[in-house]
């Protein structure tokens, strides 16, 4: 018990360190701007008055550590600063983009687990036979394909050629849920890579677990095949997969940015891309902190779940 507690404590400390590192990194990067944020923002038409105004607004005339302290204090109170382009608070941008992104990511994760685990178990049950070979090569092939290429192809086939689904979510705005047809292609594209990696890991873990002595022993006791498979083998097979699930969060965040750009969904990814294009540094900073925090917290959660599923195995930290 003591070991578990100290492990959790160490893992939490690593999470806190990662959070601090993300915040510092985001601040340091913008600090490294040639000139400063105001000059960068002014871009091709450097208007001295405007540069001075932006400098004033961002407090760039004060030393860096003071600004860092103030920025972090603001973050703790949920104040992310104000946008350079529109003067709106950054938290407003976050609130606007949050809904569509959460909907996309939530739907994807909801479908990801049953699909990935289901395919993995199915392949493992038929190890070496046709079903397994089919699932294994399909998942291996799709695993490395970039979302944008797959997405564009699906659009040209299902939206333009066959006309079954709308090509983009333009015009649906916040009412995405009311137009489920517009969500089919984005979620499908987002699912493609994570499902493949999850299915491959579950398959490998399941094959190993089904061959382990404890499953043989369970069978000798006369337990039913279903119970052995899902009650005993699957939890052990899931431990490495949960770790991968955390890794997929990285992919999901990348994927969300690409998919939102591709299907014109007004989520956080679109806000981020627009801010990067406009060099609206406070908005980029705020979004980077939110994305980074989400990754750290979800990784932490995945590690805790992995530890619960297979306490024997060593997990990071």
């Amino acid at each position, binding site marked *: 018990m003591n070991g578990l507690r100290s492990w959790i404590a160490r893992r939490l400390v*690593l999470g806190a*360190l*990662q959070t601090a*590192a*993300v915040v510092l*990194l*985001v601040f340091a*990067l*913008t600090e*490294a*701007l*040639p000139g400063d944020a105001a000059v*960068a923002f002014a871009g091709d038409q450097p208007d001295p008055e405007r540069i001075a105004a932006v400098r004033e607004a961002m407090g760039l005339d004060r030393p860096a550590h003071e600004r860092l302290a103030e920025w972090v204090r603001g973050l703790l109170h949920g104040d992310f600063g104000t946008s350079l382009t529109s003067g709106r608070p950054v938290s407003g941008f976050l609130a606007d983009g949050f809904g569509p992104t959460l909907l996309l990511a939530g739907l994807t994760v909801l479908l990801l687990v049953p699909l990935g685990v289901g395919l993995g178990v199915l392949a493992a049950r038929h*190890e*070496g036979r046709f079903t397994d070979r089919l699932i294994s*090569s399909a998942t*291996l*092939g*799709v*695993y*490395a*394909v*970039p*979302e*944008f*290429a*797959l997405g*564009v*192809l699906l*659009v*040209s086939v299902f939206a*333009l050629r066959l006309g079954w689904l709308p*090509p983009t979510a333009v015009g649906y705005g916040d009412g995405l849920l009311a137009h489920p047809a517009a969500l089919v292609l984005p979620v499908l594209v987002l699912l493609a890579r994570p499902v493949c990696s999850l299915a491959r890991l579950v398959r490998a873990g399941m*094959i190993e677990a*089904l*061959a382990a002595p404890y499953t*043989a022993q369970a069978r000798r006791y006369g337990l039913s095949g279903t119970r052995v498979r899902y009650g005993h083998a699957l939890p052990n097979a899931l431990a490495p997969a949960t770790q991968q699930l955390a890794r997929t*969060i*990285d992919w999901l*965040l*990348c994927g969300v*940015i*690409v998919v939102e*750009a591709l299907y014109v969904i007004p989520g956080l990814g679109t806000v*981020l*891309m627009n*801010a*990067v*294009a406009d*060099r609206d*540094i406070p908005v*980029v900073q705020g979004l*980077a902190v939110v*994305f*980074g925090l989400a*990754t*750290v917290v979800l*990784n932490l959660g995945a590690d805790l779940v992995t530890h619960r599923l297979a306490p024997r195995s060593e997990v*990071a930290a």
Partner: protein
Amino acid sequence: MRRLRRYGPGAAVAALPLGLALAGPYLAGEAPARAASFTLGEGYRLGTDFVGRDVVHQVLLGGRPVVLVALAATLLAYLVALPVGLAGALTHRRWLEELLMRPLDVLLAVPSLLMMLLVAAVFPPGAAGLVLLVAFVSVPDAARIVRAAAAEVASRPAVEALRMQGESWWRLAVGHVGRSIARTLAADAGIRLTGVLYLVATAAFLGIGVAPDASDWAVMVDRNRTGLLIQPWAVVVPALLIIALTMGSNLLVDAAMENRTPPRKGRRP
């Protein structure tokens, strides 16, 4: 024959995009005269793109940057990851190991594309910058793999014996440990290359490190999307080539890795 069966599918899928990427620029020749944007036919086999350039010509030119940037970035990532990982595994000073490896653990927490976007927002990179950027986000994971593989070898009695004989650190690290982990690293480099291909293409699609009118398959997909309804070839052909490239290279890497693990005999109970 068994070789053909193992590598056949991957090679068949990857052959066309790889061939185009390597030989395309030599076959392309002079650029044909520009025409109206998004036309079909009219002397151009695959029509024209968003600024009226010949799509065939662009396809021939567009594979090279994707493949070259990915190769250079993978190489660069290992140039940094190898010494860091080896030093982390072979040192007996705990603080040095922590100093080398802990920052990488922390960096691993930042999603790679987010990191690239963040840097790109501050310093808009060129092609060389994109290589640096992709290599930078690939280093933490690569260094961890190097360290894990090297630590396993370094704990063997042979290494301890060499150390007691007073062999130099250099001969120990490169001559023995480096040679022993070469196979693991080759496998990992293959996996990393497919990951890097993904990152490079996605970054180019999002406009990081490329000119807006660059001859690059990913940029073609992005820029010609507006004409998808009237001129699908300018988008579908490069998209298919990217899919074939990533899919084929992943199949090839997987086939090559099968070598390393001994085949299991028969079905287990």
